[in-house]
């Protein structure tokens, strides 16, 4: 490619170089729309429905609000605040704390496996919604793993790939149209539920299937499920935030989108499940609004999954481009998108059972994401005092102070292992086995806090002695500049 043919703004949007404030396309409302479009999908209804299993609606609403606000804030402090300030790609920024190879490892753990899984799960949600729709309007016998559901799921992934292949501008248009319509439909659903059952009646309903006799444990499991939902945005939200105009517009829309819009969807799912005894939106939507509204709502909700898929796929591909340096950077954007979608399509076609493990999958992700958030906050806010040296971030690996040990920062990786282990010791997502500590402070909070403390403490004690990371001195408060030549490529 000749240099004069390169649109560097477009390359930055789709690659790892820092976006300049003048190039960033999203204002407050545009990022709020993107955020809401990301948040509202069938998963919100299903998380609400799962909450109804553990607690009644009153406690459920409290668990949804408490869990989501804590998870969302901790995830966004670790990602949106730095990426919104410097316009850096999230996994390039992560080199400052994990090293270049460590950042790749985190990308593989937190994005490759999880995003491929999420794309398949959301595709199946779309497929099942279409299957349900078809059952409503015709004599079609619905089958969750039947040909129509799987073909529709595959179609959703293909549609997602087409929109993402066109880049962030098409994503912006898609979000701006779909997000307000989804919020409106949620409001109508809530209105209809409240029209059939009084608020007091709903609040008095019991849990559908509380697993423990101890009310406090059931409540904390409900909080934990919702906190996991809040933390689950960690791998994606930084690369969306860097497209917003400044740090403030990178932060506050999260409160509207992945907190409030997601919480609204979850509350609708919770109330519907509690009132109708079924957490499957394809069933309760027709019970609430009748056939016509059910068909319209289900159609919108089916496409809501696609907006979520679009946003997570875009952020994953941007991160993927920094994973293997020049080779992937030189591959065309569209080809990368297509290649990334192959595995999710195979999962939809040959392993649709992944859908049924949705909640266990979600809560397991929190064991990783909560620790990552804790390390990110400790590193960016407390060790680096909100100042990054971009020259260090983009220097060639051999010269960069972020090379740590062979490209890995053993301190951050140890902190990640500690955070993950603490989570599983306090609360096992597979069996729901838990300790007394869990019933007071959940599992995500101690995991996040301890991972952050381990990273902070070991960095203070070891990193400066070993010459790792170019951290500012704890007393001087200045960053060390090594006058590196940033003309070198990252990941060469």
């Amino acid at each position, binding site marked *: 490619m000749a240099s004069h043919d390169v649109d560097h703004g477009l390359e930055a949007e789709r690659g790892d170089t820092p976006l300049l404030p003048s190039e960033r396309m999203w204002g407050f409302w545009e990022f709020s729309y993107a955020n809401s479009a990301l948040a509202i999908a069938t998963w919100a209804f299903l998380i609400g429905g799962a909450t109804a299993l553990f607690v009644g609606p009153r406690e459920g609403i409290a668990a949804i609000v*408490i869990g989501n606000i804590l998870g969302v804030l901790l995830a966004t402090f670790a990602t949106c605040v730095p990426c919104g300030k*410097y316009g850096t790609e999230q996994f390039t920024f992560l080199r400052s704390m994990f090293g270049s190879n460590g950042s790749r490892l985190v990308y593989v753990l937190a994005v490759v496996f999880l995003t491929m899984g999420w794309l398949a799960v959301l595709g199946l949600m779309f497929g099942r919604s279409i299957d349900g729709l078809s059952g409503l309007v015709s004599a079609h016998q619905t089958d969750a793993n039947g040909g129509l559901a799987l073909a529709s799921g595959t179609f959703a992934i293909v549609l997602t790939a087409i929109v993402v292949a066109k880049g962030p501008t098409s994503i912006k248009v898609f979000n701006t149209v779909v997000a307000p319509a989804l919020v409106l439909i949620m409001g109508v659903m809530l209105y209809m539920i409240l029209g059939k059952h009084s608020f007091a009646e709903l609040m008095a309903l019991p849990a559908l299937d509380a697993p423990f006799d101890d009310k406090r444990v059931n409540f904390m499991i409900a909080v934990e499920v919702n906190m996991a939902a809040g933390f689950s945005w960690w791998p994606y939200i930084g690369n969306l935030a860097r497209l917003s*105009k400044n740090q403030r517009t990178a932060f506050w829309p999260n409160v509207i989108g992945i907190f409030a819009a997601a919480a609204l969807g979850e509350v609708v799912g919770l109330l519907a499940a509690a009132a109708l005894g079924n957490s499957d939106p394809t069933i309760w939507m027709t019970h609430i609004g009748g056939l016509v509204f059910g068909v319209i709502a289900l159609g919108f909700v089916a496409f809501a999954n696609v907006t979520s898929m679009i946003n997570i796929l875009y952020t994953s591909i941007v991160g993927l481009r920094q994973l293997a340096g020049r080779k992937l950077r030189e591959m065309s954007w569209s080809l990368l998108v297509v290649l990334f979608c192959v595995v999710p399509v195979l999962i939809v076609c040959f392993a649709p059972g992944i859908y049924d493990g949705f909640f266990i999958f979600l809560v397991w992700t929190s064991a990783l994401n909560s620790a990552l958030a804790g390390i990110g906050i400790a590193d960016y806010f407390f060790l680096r005092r909100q100042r990054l040296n971009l020259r260090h971030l983009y220097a060639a690996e051999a010269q960069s102070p972020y090379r740590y040990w062979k490209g890995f920062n053993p301190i951050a990786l140890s902190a990640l292992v500690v955070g993950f282990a603490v989570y599983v010791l306090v609360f096992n997502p597979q069996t729901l086995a838990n300790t007394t500590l869990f019933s007071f402070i959940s599992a995500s909070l101690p995991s996040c806090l301890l991972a952050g403390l381990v990273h902070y403490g070991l960095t203070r004690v070891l990193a400066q002695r070993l010459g790792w990371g170019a951290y500012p001195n704890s007393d001087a408060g200045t960053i060390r500049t090594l006058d590196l030549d940033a003309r070198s*490529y990252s990941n060469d």
Partner: protein
Amino acid sequence: MNSQAEHARAQDLERRIRVYEDMEKEDEWPGALSATDYVAITLMTLVLVVGFYLWGY
């Protein structure tokens, strides 16, 4: 550097880094989160967590 495209990219990266270094030097960050934002975030979180805990549990 082994191609014209890489050289152009390196120049572009240098230009981008300089923009941020200038902002850092001038300490000028339009739209940066301020102390007021952090106080508002803390208060909002406290009100939501404590308020909903007392109401719901």
